[in-house]
């Protein structure tokens, strides 16, 4: 309910805000559809401009009622569309919501990857101060673009993207999102905006700003440092896991050919045929366990690592934008101080030798004109400074709130991701263990059949199996010590 109220306040506020031209720097590239865009953008815009209440409300909302979700988005059921010119894949985007901003409780639309790209671009433009979750990367090879495995992975990533957006207390109210979720036909909306131009603009803006800041709060410096290190570690994790995955896949393949070699051997041994056969079966089971594990890494672990690599880029981008906003503010402040100094200078200065006086004007008139001009400039600048100060404050508050949320999600996701990895390994080893324990029973009983010496021989080696278990508990002990 409070979400709806927030929406309402945003709408009412927006009208006042819209009147100030300075508050909408993004609308500079206007065209004939300006009105539509303005209407669409307005409520969202408010969250950052008139931002403090909404941003605070956003974070408050999350803390007060984190369980009440009123927007559920799923991405599933990909379909391939084959045309003579182009072949592409669409995904079903299904929305269920109780929000009053939506006319229906449910929407189901089909979207292409490009549409997602458009949405994200729009969100980046309109939600400058928020961390926009990443989309899966474009495929490097066009040939594989339509393969089933790739599409499944991409679909999962798109779903994750929509889920993250729907959970965001501010971004989930974005009008472009609503359009994306509800519009039957997205093409007209997409044409209405010149995404690429403004994106290039914004990257130039953001890259130039990073080093020019006067006094960045250490908080954000730390955030930047953190995210840089995090990104580095995440990409290491990604690289290591990919390399391990490759080795594990090869291991699986070797295991697959290992079983048959034993069975083949069994063909030429009369007395050992059963033994070799059961060994072959056991190795097949091991092969399967390794395959299962690699599959789980491929579908769960790797995409998660990849997402966080991209996510950290998104965070970096938002941090840069915040820096830019701060820089804008600082520059405006500087300019204001300069003008104020100038005004003081004009007050005490002698205008007799000014260009105006030389041209034959009355020096006092010149002085007067200059002062008035400066006054109006200062007035304007003051407004701008106030606005930018607000904007900067909002950006800071949003950044902090989003970062906090991001950390919370990251902790949960990283935990899940690695726990899943470990669980997969344990499961795989368990399957191998079961297979070998089964086969050793067969081997032992066969040995007992063939001779009685086998028994005593085996008993000598039996303790070593338990010794392995003992060794591990020792290891645990050692690790515990280290922790202390």
């Amino acid at each position, binding site marked *: 309910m409070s979400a709806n109220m927030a929406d309402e306040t945003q709408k009412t506020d927006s009208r006042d805000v819209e009147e100030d031209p300075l508050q909408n720097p993004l609308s500079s590239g206007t065209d004939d559809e300006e009105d539509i865009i303005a209407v669409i953008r307005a409520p969202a815009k408010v969250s950052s401009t008139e931002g403090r209440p909404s941003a605070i409300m956003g974070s408050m909302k999350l803390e007060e009622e984190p369980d009440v979700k009123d927007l559920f988005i799923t991405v599933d059921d990909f379909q391939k569309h084959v045309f003579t010119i182009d072949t592409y894949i669409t995904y079903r985007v299904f929305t269920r919501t109780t929000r009053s901003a939506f006319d229906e409780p449910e929407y189901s639309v089909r979207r292409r990857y490009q549409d997602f790209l458009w949405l994200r671009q729009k969100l980046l433009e309109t939600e400058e101060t928020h961390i926009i979750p990443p989309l899966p990367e474009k495929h490097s090879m066009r040939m594989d673009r339509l393969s089933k495995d790739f599409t499944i992975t991409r679909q999962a990533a798109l779903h994750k993207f929509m889920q993250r957006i729907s959970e965001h207390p501010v971004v989930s109210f974005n009008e472009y999102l609503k359009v994306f979720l509800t519009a039957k036909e997205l093409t007209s909306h997409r044409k209405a905006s010149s995404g690429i131009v403004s994106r290039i603009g914004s990257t130039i803006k953001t890259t130039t700003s990073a080093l020019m800041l006067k006094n960045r709060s250490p908080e954000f410096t730390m955030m930047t440092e953190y995210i840089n290190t995090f990104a580095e570690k995440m990409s290491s994790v990604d690289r290591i896991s990919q390399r391990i995955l490759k080795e594990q896949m090869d291991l699986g393949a070797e295991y697959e050919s290992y079983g048959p070699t*034993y069975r083949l*051997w069994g063909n030429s041994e009369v007395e050992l045929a059963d033994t070799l056969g059961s060994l072959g079966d056991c190795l097949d089971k091991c092969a399967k366990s390794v395959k299962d594990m690699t599959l789980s890494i491929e579908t769960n672990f790797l995409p998660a690592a990849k997402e966080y690599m991209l996510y950290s880029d998104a965070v970096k981008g938002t941090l840069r934008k915040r820096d830019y906003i701060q820089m804008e503010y600082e520059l405006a402040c500087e300019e204001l101080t300069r003008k104020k100094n100038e005004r003081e200078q004009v007050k005490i200065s002698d205008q007799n030798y000014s260009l105006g006086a030389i041209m034959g004007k009355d020096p006092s008139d010149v002085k007067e004109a200059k002062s008035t001009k400066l006054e109006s400039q200062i007035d304007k600048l003051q407004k701008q400074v106030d606005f930018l100060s607000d904007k900067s404050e909002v950006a800071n508050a949003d950044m902090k709130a989003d970062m906090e949320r991001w950390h919370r999600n990251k902790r949960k996701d990283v935990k899940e991701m690695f726990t899943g990895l470990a669980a997969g390994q344990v499961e795989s080893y368990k399957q191998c263990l079961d297979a070998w324990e089964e086969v050793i029973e067969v081997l032992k009983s066969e040995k007992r059949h063939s001779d009685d010496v*086998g028994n005593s021989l085996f008993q000598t080696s039996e303790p070593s199996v338990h010794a392995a278990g003992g060794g591990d508990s020792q290891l645990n002990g050692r690790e515990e010590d280290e922790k202390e």
Partner: protein
Amino acid sequence: MADVTGDPSAPSYDSELLSDQQDTSGPTSIGDLARIAAKNRKPKLPHWTSLIDCQDGTLLEQVEICVTEQEKRTGAARTTSMGMKDVYTVYLVETRVKESGGQGLGEGHTSLWRRYSEFELLRNYLVVTYSYVIVPPLPEKRMTLMWQQMSTVDNFDADFIERRRVGLEGFLQRVGAHQTLCEDGIFHGFLQKEDSWKEAVHATGFQAKQDSRLKSLNASFRLKKPDRKFEDLKNYASELQGNITAVLKVRAKLVDRLYGIHKIHGNYGRVFSEWSGIEQEMGDGLQSAGHFMDAYKDYIDDYMNEEEQIADQLKEYIYFADALKSVCRKQEVLQYELEKAGDLLAAKTLQKEQVMGNAPSRSFSLRGMRSKIFGPESQESKDAQTKVLEEQIEECEQHLKQATQETEAFIESALVEVERFKKQRTTDLKEIFINYAILQIKISKRGIAVWTNMKDCFQKM
């Protein structure tokens, strides 16, 4: 993968492996390397006595035979034409007589150094002297079918030498456990007589009895009546070699991957410990998970050695198959000689018949020509010829009889030996497989333990 090289966090387990090796090759002179490595680096590989089935009344019951140490030596000032010194490894053969029996061995405890070439000499002697016996094989001269990290080493690598020591010990114990071989004087001499043992071996003149390779090759191609049993054995030996080779090849690749996988996990350990520095709540979990990653990286080395040992035991049977083949070859040679003797006898008999005019010469012959041109030969010359032929025939008959006896005796003993071998093979292989399974169980349990611990760490984050 090009970007990987310059990056310190790039996954690479090779470097760690290298440093691992450097640690061990650090100490002092090369000469001590093998011994130091064998003593300090890891516990000695246990010998596989468990595999050797002690037969009743064999030497091994009364005597303990061990190859306990190895040492690198340089030939005394005897440099080769290349200016390189003759460097070799010697192995300490220790013999302890537990209870004095009538085995012709001296009393008490003896220990002496033997070179690999001396082991080879002993085995060659045994192979020639007891041609019907499937003589236990020696460990291979150079390593084959190895796990990759192992295959790059040279003949003086500590691991290689250690594994050869184990193999040589196994060889001596197998010989000692063999009903026939264990009673051989030269074998006893090998164990106990340091001086003039080589001379004693050569004095037996065994080399003269050695069948040339050409001879046996000849035999196998020209055999008229190959013995089905030995043909089957020969085929079996080839199949056994093929099968074990196939298994070992896949195993080597498998182990290679496994080793790599464990080692790459070490990189996680490093990344986690660096990462833990920037995380507040997750830091501790990452840190301790990193420790477990390191443990996962490290423990594989131990298992690799055990794996290799089992592989060695399996590999012994590739060479056992060679020994089996050589028995088959010996049978072929004997059979060939038997057939040759038979042929000669038949030829002489035919000749005699022809001379006596009892049999018509089946084909155009010189004799037929002569009788046509000069008329029939005189009775005297015929008699003389017949007499010579009869003598020859008798000689041939003797020879044939002898060859038949020899072959029969050989076949009889060889088949007994083959039966013994088959039994030994079945028990050994089963034992090897059980050991292999035990090792796999250990590895799996270790894996479960480490990853369960890691899971706990992650869950606490």
